[in-house]
């Protein structure tokens, strides 16, 4: 039932300080006094604002309605009053309205024991409807609306469904801790997904740094008598990437008939379908050298990341850089006022020394970037082509396969920003017509 797979080629071993956060249970972060909730927290169109300043909102009330076929609902994470609809620039550069809610009033859901609702008698359409209503999106960072991913076209068959439990970055332990603490809920969610997709084969992929989960899930799956194979993959970065997981787990078949969901998303599906709860909080790994007590927090969407530092015992020194996501491909933010969104897998804090830009040396053709690239590219060559403006040749040599995983730049002894330039080249290439 369980077997290990050899690693995909390339990849790197970034520093991993997750042993602290791994050992601790998920803690509930304090409810924020102010929640800043962007209406674009997913791939696709921003949600349409359905509240006005001055409105009173309840916990979990819809404040942004999905707008178009690829969009997702957004809910208020706290009860209170809408003080402002503010247009904000998100860390990735997108500009969208954000609903600012000031805490007040009564908690209707939190603090009460969750009540499980039966879902077995519901139709597929009804279950999908529940997932859509709850605003569930891919919580591994991909942020694609989940109800779209789980909707199988009539007549189509899904050959492979994968629950991805391999950490996107070994230093982020949110998925691991969730898997360890919520096996019954995850197995329930697996059952829901199997019901929706009717896949030929179902796989739970775990990282090799999470061997202790194997026995937990072997037992949980056996007790639930759910047919699901456990596959252990090397936890070398970026093995958690969807394409690499599918490449390792799949049997070489077409990926078009495969569906892969992150385990955080599975838990959100469980909450949406079984508890009827919208997606208003997520698990965030808070880590980095200046953080006194790195840990995994259950955080309400809209909480400003600066408030999370106090939850982790405060800071032991000055801060030079704050990154949302992971250290390999996360976005550095300008301010700790930035709000946690559905896509915030982690917050990584760097001291001033670690944050400084390292001296860049000329490329000495050492080939480290080639060895590190999981996608079989020659990053140094693509970098030179992009710098020369020759995007056509760069594309011929595979530029479009670059996923921005950052391995090339990580491995470069000359500290050349290969990944950033390659990603730049890709976005430029997308803007100009193909020639």
């Amino acid at each position, binding site marked *: 039932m369980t077997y290990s797979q050899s690693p995909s080629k390339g990849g790197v071993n970034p520093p991993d300080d997750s042993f602290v956060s791994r050992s601790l249970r998920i803690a509930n972060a304090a409810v924020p006094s102010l929640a800043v909730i962007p209406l674009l927290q997913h791939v696709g169109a921003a949600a349409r604002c359905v509240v006005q300043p001055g409105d009173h909102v309840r916990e979990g009330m819809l404040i942004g309605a999905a707008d178009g076929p690829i969009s997702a609902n957004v809910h208020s994470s706290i009860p209170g009053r809408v003080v402002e609809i503010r247009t904000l620039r998100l860390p990735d550069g997108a500009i969208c309205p954000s609903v600012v809610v000031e805490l007040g009033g009564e908690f209707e859901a939190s603090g009460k024991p969750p009540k499980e609702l039966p879902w077995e008698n519901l139709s597929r359409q009804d279950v999908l409807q529940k997932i859509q209503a709850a605003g569930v999106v891919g919580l591994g960072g991909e942020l694609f609306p989940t109800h779209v991913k789980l909707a199988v076209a009539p007549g189509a068959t899904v050959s492979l469904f994968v629950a991805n439990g391999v950490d996107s970055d070994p230093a982020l332990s949110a998925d691991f801790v969730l898997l360890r603490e919520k096996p019954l809920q995850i197995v329930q969610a697996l059952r829901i997904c199997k019901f929706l997709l009717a896949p030929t084969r179902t796989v739970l992929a775990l990282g090799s740094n999470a061997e202790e989960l194997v026995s937990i899930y072997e037992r949980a799956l056996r007790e639930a008598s759910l047919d699901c194979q456990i596959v252990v993959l090397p936890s070398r970065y970026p093995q958690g990437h969807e394409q690499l997981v599918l*490449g390792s787990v799949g049997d070489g078949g077409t990926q078009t008939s495969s569906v892969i969901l992150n385990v955080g998303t599975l838990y959100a599906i469980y909450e949406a379908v079984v508890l009827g709860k919208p997606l208003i909080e997520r698990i965030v790994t808070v880590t980095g050298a200046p953080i006194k007590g790195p840990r995994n927090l259950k955080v309400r969407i809209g909480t400003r990341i600066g408030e999370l530092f106090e939850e982790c015992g405060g800071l032991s020194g000055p801060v030079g*850089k704050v990154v949302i996501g992971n250290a390999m491909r996360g976005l550095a933010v300008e301010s700790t006022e930035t709000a946690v969104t559905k896509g915030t897998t982690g917050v990584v804090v760097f001291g*001033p020394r670690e944050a400084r830009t390292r001296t860049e040396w000329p490329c*000495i053709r050492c080939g480290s970037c080639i060895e590190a690239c999981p996608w079989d590219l020659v990053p140094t060559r693509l970098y030179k082509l992009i710098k020369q403006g020759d995007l056509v040749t760069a594309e011929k040599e595979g530029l479009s396969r670059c996923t921005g995983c950052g391995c090339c*730049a990580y491995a470069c002894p000359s500290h050349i920003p290969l990944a950033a330039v390659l990603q730049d080249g890709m976005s430029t290439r997308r803007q100009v017509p193909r020639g």
Partner: protein
Amino acid sequence: MAERPEQGGHAALIVAPAPHVGIPGSTAGMTWSVVGALAPAAAWGIFMFGAAAVFVLVVSVGTAVLAELLCCLVSGRMTLSDGSAVLTGLVIGLLLSAGCPLYVPAAAAAFAILVVKQSFGGLGRNWMNPALAGVVFAQLSWGASMARWLPARGVAESGGLPPLDALRAAFSTTGWSGRTPLAVLASSGYTFSGLDATVVQWVNAHVLSIVGVSLRPGFFDLLVGHVTGAIGTICVPLLVLGAVALLRRGVMRWQVPVAFLSSFVVLAFLFGGLSTGQGWFAGGAGFQLFSGSLVLTAFFAATDPVTSPLGLRGRWVYGIGLGVLAFVMRFYGSLGDGIPVALVMGNCFVPLIDRATPRRQPENARKGVA
């Protein structure tokens, strides 16, 4: 830059593209560690040849640094700290005889930095190894001065020639008058140190007599570098020690030196005897391996990433090609021990090798990446 947390947030956080972490080392650090790895061999050279070796090394390193400084002033970019000029100067000095006139290291280093490296755009853009190209330039210009050898400490009675040159001289006067190169040297009157005689005698009597073989006189001197030769090339064990340290730290990759040395040894063993009338399988491969600048070049010049192919397959092709060129230039060439010119010739083929060994089409492409 935020120096201390302020109330309600942190002023001026650094915003930079991902990744926000990287490997600990740097290109400059790698270059300086190569300089460090060559230090033991350099120290041995200074011990064996005395102050004359110091002068040669100081002049070669000093000229390289001054030339680099001149280029920094012209271009306005300070590149001295990347260590490449010091390394180039050091390699040049180590490849020269302690007895050569001081204008030789100066000219070789100036040529290496000014012409070979900086005129092509500096570190990373030169297509020939600067140090070895500088040495070849000097060999072509002042061949006779470069062959002015200084006898090493304790081996003065040998006639002052390195074993390889002495073998050539012996062959041209008396022909091949023994079975192995060391036997030829012995019969031509080439003498080794007293220590060598003691050690070889002891080993023959107490260790090898058990299995019925014996070492030739001179074996020990050749092995530990107790011979005349270029300053940094004579002590192979110290060179290997430095190379192993670099391999362990991941600064150096093993494919090129292994391919280089093994293809050279195989060719020398198979065909090395043909040029002296010894026939097949009589090349004295061990003697050839330990002589001249082969080991230093294989570990510290052929591994120069700037002038090596990018890919792994290309590196194997390059290494084997270097072995072939080194064999041809040593046994049939006329330029010193043939190794520097072989390396520089190998450099010329690198763009061709890169072109001929493209990346295989990756599997990921087939799997339909969106």
